[in-house]
Every structure is written in C-alpha cells, then in structure tokens.
C-alpha cells in the first residue's frame, strides 16, 4: 500500500515539475525570440514602436558587424599647453587593459563624442592630465576607405576649457 502511494506521489511531483519547466521554457522562448526580432522585423511589420524589455536584451537584437561601412571614424584628444596642441595617446586616456583585445581598437573612445558626454569627460581629462591648460576633442573620419584610403577629415567636436 505504501509503495504505490510513494510512486503516485513521485509521479505527481514529476508532473508538477514538468509543467513548471514547460512554462519557463515557453515564456523564455517567447521573450527571447520577440526581443531578437523586435527592432528590425516586428516593428516594421506592425509599423509602430513595440514595447522593449529592459534589463536583459540588447536594444536592436544580435546585430554584430551587421553593417560595416566604407567609412571609419574615431576620436582624437589633444592636450593644449601654452597654445601648443599635443595628441594624447588614447591608451593613456583609457588605461584599463582588457584581456585578449584592445578596447581602443574597438573604438571605445568614440563614446566621448556623444552629445552631453563632455560634462563627464572634461573633468576626467583635467584630473588625469593636469599638465595641460585645456583639451580639444576631435573627430577624425576616413570617408572612403577603399577608394581613397588617405583621404581624412578632422573636426573639433568640443573643447574642455581651463
């Protein structure tokens, strides 16, 4: 009598366990595929902005290297002392060394060109490089890498005053 009871109890526990797992799996797959396709496929399909789940997925899906253009741009930072500008090695600005890759080559410094970032970046530069009187943050662009590899433009984006 006891053994069959035990086995039916185990069977019921297994059923509950399987239902719970199935629920988790279905919910997860729904969210995962929704978030993977939302920005570039679902939104154009429904022609409106769809809700985005925070805290877990990237904003536009898995778009690694999906669009690599013929142009390339990066940030250059100059320290100015007595009116003479001097290029600051980007590795001196971002001293954190990642393992197996170079964050500078991933163009991490491009972030400093985002509008509003000067509020945080200027005090940072002044603290790290007190020698300089002011800083000039520029954007360097190669507009046509393949056709004109040496054509390069450079423009000042903002300056960090004294």
């Amino acid at each position, binding site marked *: 009598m006891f053994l069959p009871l035990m086995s039916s109890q185990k069977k019921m526990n297994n059923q509950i*366990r*399987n239902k719970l*797992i*199935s629920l*988790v*799996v279905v919910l*997860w*797959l729904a969210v*995962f*595929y929704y978030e993977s*396709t939302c920005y*570039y*496929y679902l939104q*154009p399909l429904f022609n409106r902005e769809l809700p*985005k789940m*925070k*805290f*877990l*997925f*990237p*904003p536009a*899906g*898995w*778009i*690694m*290297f*999906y*669009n*690599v*253009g*013929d142009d*390339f741009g990066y940030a250059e930072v100059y320290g100015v002392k007595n009116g003479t500008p001097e290029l600051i090695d980007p590795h001196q600005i*971002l*001293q*954190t*060394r*990642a*393992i*197996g*890759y170079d*964050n*500078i*080559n*991933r*163009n*991490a410094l491009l*972030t*400093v060109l*985002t509008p509003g*970032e000067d509020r*945080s*970046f200027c*005090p*940072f530069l002044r*603290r*790290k490089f007190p020698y300089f009187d002011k800083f000039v943050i520029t954007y360097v662009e*190669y507009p046509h*890498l*393949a056709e004109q*590899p040496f054509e390069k433009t450079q423009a000042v984006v903002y300056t960090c005053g004294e």
Partner: protein
Amino acid sequence: MKNTWNTLFLEDRPSIGLSFFRIFVALTVGLHVIPSFFHLDDNYLSTAFKALNSTFFPLAFINWVQQSPDALVIFFVWAFVITWFCFLIGLFSQISCILMTACCYYFYALNSFHIGTLSWDILLVTLFLMCVTPYHGDYFSVDALRRGDTDAWRRTRPFFIQRLLQLQTASTFFFTGLYKITGEGNWITGNPIYYLMNYPVQGVTKNFILKEWMAVHPQFCYVTGLMIVATELTLPFLLFIPKTRRAAIVLGLCWHVLLVLTLDVPTIFLFLFPAQMMLFIHPQKITDWIESKRRINAQSPRPKVTYDGGCGFCRSSVRVLQVMDLWSKLEYIPGPKGLSEMRLDFPDGKTYGGFFAFRRLVWILPMLYVMIPIVYFPGAGILGPLVYRWVARNRYLFPVFHSCASGKCHL
C-alpha cells in the same frame, strides 16, 4: 508532439556538461570584469568617466545606481570578487551565480563604458539562464565535494537549461547572419570584409598575415563575406542534426579562433562562445566515455591510497578524493586504526606518505590541478608536512560527513 517536447526539454540527462560550462562562464565573467577594477578611479568611482546605457536599463534604475557613494562601489567590488570566486569553484553555485550576476548588473548600470558590448549582453542572457537552476554545481564543484556524492559526475537533471543555452547559441548565430543580409545589413550590397581589411591601425581589425593581401582583393573579400553569412545561417541547424553535429562543433570552434585572431573582439568570444559549442555534445556520450575510462583503469594496476580506517575525518577525506577521482585512477584501502598518515603506494613500488602523498595526488586528480601552484610554492615542502602533521594529530576533532561518522561510510 508530447514525446518530442519531453525529449527536447524535460528528459533527465547528465548535468556534467553544464558543470564544465559553469567554469568557462565564470572565467569569461571574471576576465571581462575584473580588469576594470584595476582602475577604479577611472571606471567606477566619482572621478570616473562614465557612459550610461539607458536603452538597457530604465533611467530610474541608472539614477539610483549613480547615487552610489565610493564606499558602496568598493563594497560591490569585493562582493563581485567573492561571489565570482565561489561561482568559479562551485561553492553554493546557484546563490553565488545570482549574487555575481547582480553585481554584474550593478557595474553595468554604474558604467557601461568598459564592460558593455553586444557580446556582454549575450553573456548576461547566459548568466540569467544559469541563475535559474543549481544544476551547474553538480560536478567540478566544491558543492559536489560537500555533498560527498561519488556518483555526482553521472547525476541526471532535466535537460531544459542546457537546451535553452543551445538554442540561445544557435539563434544568436542565425540572427547575426540574418541581420547581415536583411534590413540595414550590407553584406550583400556592400563588401564589409574588404572595408574591414582597409581600416586604419586604429580600427577593429588586427594585423594578421593575409590582411594586406585581402585589402587589395575585393572579390575574395566579398566571397569570404558571403561564406561567413552562409556559415552563420546554416551552423545552427548543423549543430542540431546528429550526423553533422561533430563537424559543426569543430567549425564553430575554428570560427571563434579565427574571429579572435583577426578582430579585436571582447574576451567573451575567446572564453564563452567556444564553450557554448561544447554544450551540443550529448551529455550521455560524455558519461559513457568517462565510464569506459573508469572501467579500463579499474582493471589496471592502480596507485593505492591507504588511510586510517577508524577515523571518520579520514573516511570523509577519502570520500572527497573519490568524488574527485573522475577516472577511477586510485584504489582506496582502509588501514588499521591509528595509522599516522595517509600512504600512497604506486604499482612500480614508489611510496609516499602524508603531505608528499597529497602532493602526488594533485597530479592524479584533475579537480586538484588548481592546488599544484600551492603545494609546490617555495617553502611548501617545509610548511606542508607541519600542517599535515597538525591536522593528522587533531583528525578525530574535525567534522565528518554524517554518513562517514558511524564507520559505515560507503567507499
């Protein structure tokens, strides 16, 4: 339909693959995050330059995290290091995974500048799945040693977490390929590989042997690009077809090696993605392989571990050795009560005792490999025997596994 669902997600399968994967997830998280702690003033303290990821986090959460005083940041650094280490060694695996993930979120919200990349988001999705169950602590873990379960390596669990991780890997591959040729992707209309090869030195392309040659051969680059897209679109399917799985795993591994050699891609590409490929190996095949190795070893002459059979602590310690003895390379002989030290006798006649027996064991048991630098550290040959003798003298005072206390510990 129901049977397929059961096979896909509900069937119990050995969790050893997931346990092995845990180590790679921990290494990836540690190697990605810990370097950013060496310049706290640049990265996280009030003096840092910060980039905030407002598309990933709600603004209210970011503002809340940004109010952190420096002392709280330092607290989180220590919390991360401790929980990360616990997760790496598999101590309270699930709890440590949850706490470590919480710390990751904290630092990501505090400053996404160094750690925030698209592959970091993939890592967070992986961590989320790892937080759901404790299965990843079943083996290659301190948890397994604490439990003293000698069959931990063949323990079976519902397969759904490993399956979801497989689906995540395969889907990431697929969508990465799909985005390249649809929407704003330009791998059909443009020649991205050619552009990458012509990037200036500041760019993401590393200097590798073929780079200069490829930079002047656009047609080769275009075909390479198409082959990359074709691989990304087909690999997910090849990984799930049993006949092509092995080739697909090798292809996936080579894929990531090539990526790391040619592009400045984050640590995650080097440590996590190749390990994700290994998740496609059927766990039953792994345990069958281990079982066959154990059978072969059991039939060959093996080193004998002789211990004090009348001491609960010694029996417990031998139980721990047994848990770690994945290949069944040792034979365990209970010696007479009061035996002063553990003996390790090799079939060729060599004999070691006490600390020096333990020092030999670290070469035999893979889970003890991490102890090699410690037991061979300069001075360990002097200090080690002293510590061993102190432990041996007080061995009757140490706690033991409940099942080993009565002398009925099954070894």
